[in-house]
């Protein structure tokens, strides 16, 4: 009987991670359509934002080129990390599959996070297709320096951790209400708007900006992209990363707490 060491833990999670990306690759046609869809979306995004900026050099201090590039990158990121579709948890709770998950030698949280991580990696080709389209149309520009690139990649990783955790947290309401369609719609709309995936936070009304900037959602897409475009320096940059990290830690703790409550509520449905 293997002892629970770091290596057995990682091997166990590798299994779920593989399950995640293999499940995406199992539906090749779907992936292919997704790629085509993103090429179209990236193209339209570039065209529409360029039209919007006609006659304006800058809006809210942001130049046309930056705004267009932001929109394309946000669309790519959103396609890869698609925060509201990852967790199969609500469906598994509803179908009673959750019982099977609970007799695995890894915690339900790590199973879900590892599998969602795998799904995300499986969807990387979508983001790549959007990025290539953006580059081909001359709409996406690289960060000012290699350092900016590296820091924004770190920030993206924190953003992804944030998305996966919040997503699982929202999914866990299924233990209380079973049908979480309504909550998911609210979450989907809220996160798309508040994360800056639809509209960069630069363009939000001034009274709303300070509120949004403290919420966990802005850490998902707006924070890494604002670093990419070099709009953050010094203390602001460090503060952004620190806030992202703090949110990940808080959300992860919250996840543990919610799961501890949920476990007592498990009623495996249907015999």
């Amino acid at each position, binding site marked *: 009987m293997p002892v629970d060491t770091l290596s057995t833990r990682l091997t166990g999670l590798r299994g779920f991670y593989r399950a995640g990306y293999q499940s995406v690759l199992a539906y090749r046609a779907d992936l292919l359509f997704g790629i085509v869809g993103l090429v179209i979306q990236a193209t339209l995004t570039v065209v529409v934002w360029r039209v919007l900026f006609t006659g304006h050099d800058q809006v809210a201090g942001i130049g046309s080129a930056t705004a267009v590039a932001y929109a394309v990158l946000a669309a790519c990121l959103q396609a890869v990390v698609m925060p509201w579709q990852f967790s199969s948890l609500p469906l598994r709770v509803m179908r009673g599959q959750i019982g099977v998950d609970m007799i695995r030698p*890894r915690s339900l949280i790590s199973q879900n996070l590892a599998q969602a991580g795998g799904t995300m990696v499986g969807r990387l080709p979508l983001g790549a297709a959007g990025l290539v389209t953006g580059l081909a149309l001359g709409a996406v520009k690289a960060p000012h320096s290699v350092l900016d690139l590296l820091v924004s990649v770190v920030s993206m990783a924190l953003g992804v951790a944030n998305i996966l955790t919040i997503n699982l947290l929202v999914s866990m309401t299924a233990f209380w209400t079973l049908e979480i369609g309504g909550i998911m719609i609210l979450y989907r709309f809220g996160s798309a708007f508040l994360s800056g995936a639809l509209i960069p936070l630069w363009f939000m009304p001034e009274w709303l900006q300070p509120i949004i900037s403290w919420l966990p959602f802005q850490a998902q897409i707006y924070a890494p992209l604002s670093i990419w475009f070099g709009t953050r320096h010094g203390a602001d940059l460090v503060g952004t990363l620190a806030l992202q990290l703090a949110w990940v830690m808080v959300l992860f703790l919250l996840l543990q707490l919610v799961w501890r409550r949920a476990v007592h509520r498990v*009623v495996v449905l249907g015999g």
Partner: protein
Amino acid sequence: MIIEVADLTKDFSRPDVRPGRFAGTRSLFTRARKVTRAVDGISFQIDDGELIGFLGPNGAGKSTTIKMLTGILVPTSGTVTVAGQVPWRDRRRNARTIGAVFGQRTQLWYDLPLRNSFEIIRDLYSMDPATYRTRLGEFTELLDLDEFIDTPVRSLSLGQRMRGDLVAAMLYAPRILYLDEPTVGLDVVAKGKIREFVAEINAGRGTTVILTTHDMDDVERLCRRVVIIDHGKILYEGDVGMLKAQYVTSRDVVVHCTDFDATTISSPFAQVVSADTFKATLRFDPEVTAAPKVVHDLTSRYPITDLSLLEPDLEDVIRQLYTERTPVPARGTGA
């Protein structure tokens, strides 16, 4: 003792909605809850290496008990120890000790080929590659997985999927295997394969098996001891043979003849329960007259072409037990 259950109780509570006007709307606000007791203070023990049948009608509390034994549900009160651990308290360690097949649900990955599911399980239980290959090879042969191991689970037939699930539960060689209705909905051949496999892993590998089923053939072929529960309480715990002996107070003998009218048949040791020209069924009490005596009496006096003694039917016994719903004192090898 590998499993010890003492005074195990599980209550479920749900909002108590009284029917009537605006029942749906009221259900959103009601704080009243209705408590149902699914398992009501049961105790039993299971020995290492046993193959035990866990029976009961629908809604008896079988699955709830199994879910507490596997650590999925937290009991309301009472204790359970499985291989020295409290299953719901140390869920992860318990997971390495047990395997489970729930007939109605699968642990396989729906979108992926069966082989990928096995590889995920290999990773999950940190199996070394050589052991994995050997064991998968053995199981593939035992259950004829070859023809569908590379097919996505969603395309498998129920029988194939169930065989896949059994392998998934046994790959990492758990000490205990829970089987919750593993043969439900399967054809005779698939049932046979699964029973063969279960018998093999119990006798050949010493795995303790807890089998929940409604199929009395499963029980007769596999289990020596059964625990029968209903309304959350134990009705019977003990030997299958003893259960039959207690309930079956009469046995039937069927005779066939061509040279005389079977309706004229009679015996001092048995009563005719039905008869037509070519066939008669007689019933006798085995406690009073031994079967060979009845057979000898009939064959010596009549030119009989064929004769068969009917085995007591477990299905009838269980039906009677479920209908009467009174606990039977354990006899035989039960704990």
